[in-house]
């Protein structure tokens, strides 16, 4: 195959169903830490300019360290994990596998739904920090 053609072939990543028992990893930048190095409620937010959801990585394709390394400054990030089934129990939240071909991130997944005060507090109650 011509190398130019080979370089233009994009991976064929289909969106998959994420099981309830799997974890989602989420990078939290230091801008969203409190004085004790824990996430603040504002960390749980949507990205309207990107996918419109809250970006996470599915454990099937990424480790927590791989998630952390995707930040511009890995050292300025912690990684937390969220159990998919528990996230789905939060009002109006849905978990969708949205592989990001452009950024070579097959693990990318979104948590869609408005991040109200209640929703942000529920996320605060269920997250677990991943020691790295």
């Amino acid at each position, binding site marked *: 195959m011509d190398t130019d053609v080979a370089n233009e072939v994009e991976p064929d990543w289909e969106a998959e169903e994420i099981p309830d028992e799997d974890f989602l990893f989420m990078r939290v930048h230091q*801008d969203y830490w409190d004085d004790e190095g824990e996430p*603040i409620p504002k960390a749980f*937010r949507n990205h309207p300019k990107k996918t419109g959801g809250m970006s996470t990585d599915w454990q099937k394709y990424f480790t927590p360290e791989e998630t952390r390394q995707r930040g511009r400054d890995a050292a300025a990030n912690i990684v937390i994990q969220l159990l998919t089934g528990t996230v789905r129990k939060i*009002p109006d939240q849905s978990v969708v596998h949205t592989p990001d071909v452009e950024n070579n991130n097959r693990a990318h997944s979104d948590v869609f739904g408005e991040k*109200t005060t209640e929703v942000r507090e*529920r996320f*605060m109650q269920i997250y677990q920090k991943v020691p790295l």
Partner: protein
Amino acid sequence: MNDLGSEIPPQILFNSDLVSSVREPRDQPSSITLDSFNIPGRFSGPGFQRAGFGALQGAYAGVLLTPELGLYKQQITRISVRIAAAIESSRRILDLPENWDEEGSPAYAESTWERAAYHAKQTAIEYRKSNGVWVNPPKITPGPDGSIDVRWKTLERSVLINFPAADTEPVQFFGSDGDTESIRGTLDIFSPNQWILMWLMR
């Protein structure tokens, strides 16, 4: 001036349509709303009814407080050092510039912080008056869209209160034990709200 330290006796207003103004949980155990505990406070929405004069019933404390019983309340004029430090430390939120997170977040207005700080201080003082102890300081952090979050937490429960940038917008809160009990609604920060800490410390 009465023994609660205010010129005007506390007025109790509740919204008889509170249930319709609060989102119902989906597929979750029944939640505890303000209405079901007859907890004083002024709630947003139509249909206010005057429920009584000067009588406060704290369901979690199990004590009926009346102006007469208020005679025995401690007069608290200063806040605990830890709570004062937490409130003062949070003032640095005002130093965050426009787009501080590179995601378009606005800067924070001092008036927003003052409302959050006032709530934290007054609520802690009122709780101390009623229960004789200081609670642990809340965490006061930047919220979405120029709002400020105040989060109170114990080992078993937590409650998040959001103070919007616009003072015409309602102050919303949600608290839960992570299992079966939850509270949600809107607050009038100028009414006594120590019931939130009474629920938290239960």
